[in-house]
């Protein structure tokens, strides 16, 4: 389906099921970029490491690690240690995103200037730049 959606001037953003199942079944290079989303917890970093390995082994596309809910330097260090040499986006732990999630409102609508939201906007803009085009 992802391959068939490709059109000049069209950008497809797919939110995959948790885990590796969907990524493992991708073939035919239907994606340009895979964003592996992790939290700075031991479980999430372990899953993220496996996802990143799979993306690299499969040559699926550019790999970006987006670390969500980063609270402090220790969190940032945990993420960096788990993914040495990879593109990292650190999204700060942001009460505005949590509040938006609980009220069922898109964070971009609820708090467009919140630090967590701005980090995600920077990711989107970065992927549209020369390296992600």
């Amino acid at each position, binding site marked *: 389906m992802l391959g068939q959606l490709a059109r000049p001037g069209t950008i497809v953003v797919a939110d995959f*099921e*948790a*885990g*590796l*199942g969907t990524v*493992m079944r991708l073939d035919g290079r239907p994606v340009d970029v895979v964003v592996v989303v992790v*939290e*700075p*917890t*031991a*479980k999430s970093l*372990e*899953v993220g490491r*496996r996802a990143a*390995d*799979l993306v690299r*082994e*499969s040559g699926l596309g550019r790999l970006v690690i987006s670390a969500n809910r980063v609270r402090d330097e*220790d*969190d940032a260090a*945990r993420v960096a240690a788990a993914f040495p040499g990879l593109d990292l986006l650190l999204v700060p732990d942001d009460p505005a995103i949590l509040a938006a*999630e*609980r009220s*069922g409102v898109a964070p971009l609508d609820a708090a467009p200037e919140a630090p967590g939201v701005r980090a995600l906007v920077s990711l989107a803009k970065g992927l549209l730049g020369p390296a992600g085009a």
Partner: protein
Amino acid sequence: MRVAFVGKGGAGKSSLAGTFARVLAGTGERVLALDSDPMPGLAFSLGIDRVDEGLPDETVEEYNDDGHRRFRLRQGLTGVGAVERYAVQGPDGVHFLQLGKAHGQRWDNTRQHFGFQHVLDDLPGDGWSIVGDLPGGTRQPFMTWGRYADTFLVIVEPTPASLLTGRRLARLAATAQAPRVVVVANKVRESEEVERVGERTGLRVLGAVPFDPELETADRLGRAVLDHDPQGQTATAVRSLMDVLLTGMEPS
């Protein structure tokens, strides 16, 4: 007691299941904790460092069933025997059996999958309690990975997405004629959220677990919250859930 934890990914199933298993084992029960998620999770919550030690491929043997390729437990091996042989001993005496974890492009868990499924059909009976941590989502947990359970705990956090998953699980449970299905409100910050979880899922609320910053810290450190903060909010709430189930008290 045979309990399965279900709910949306990220709702807190593994954290609560691991804590529940250990708290139950701490009362002297023989507890088997089952992790049927192909991604690592329950081992961390139990405080077991063997996060990827599933059933070996030779647990099953292949046979031909009228032209179809099938798998069954190898000759002489029963489900109970597989538990005795392959379960890992964890803290508080918990026995831990896990599905092997996904890794790499050519990962194939066909044999593990069927082996685990056969074990689920022949789990230890008298004298054992089973605590299962199921994969996230709504893929028929009642008839497949959780079919051994007599009680399903639907773990729901008070977000629209988690509430919707809880509601769908409740409908699936009714369709599947599942035994007792109750909801646990997790990561609760305000008391009215508990009521909302009950209303929106249509399930009886067994109890609530407050949002616990110490659980977040334990998760970051890769420690079981029961080791990190044994008398904290999560451990206390899980003990209450267990008491309600053990005493047969009706949930609110």
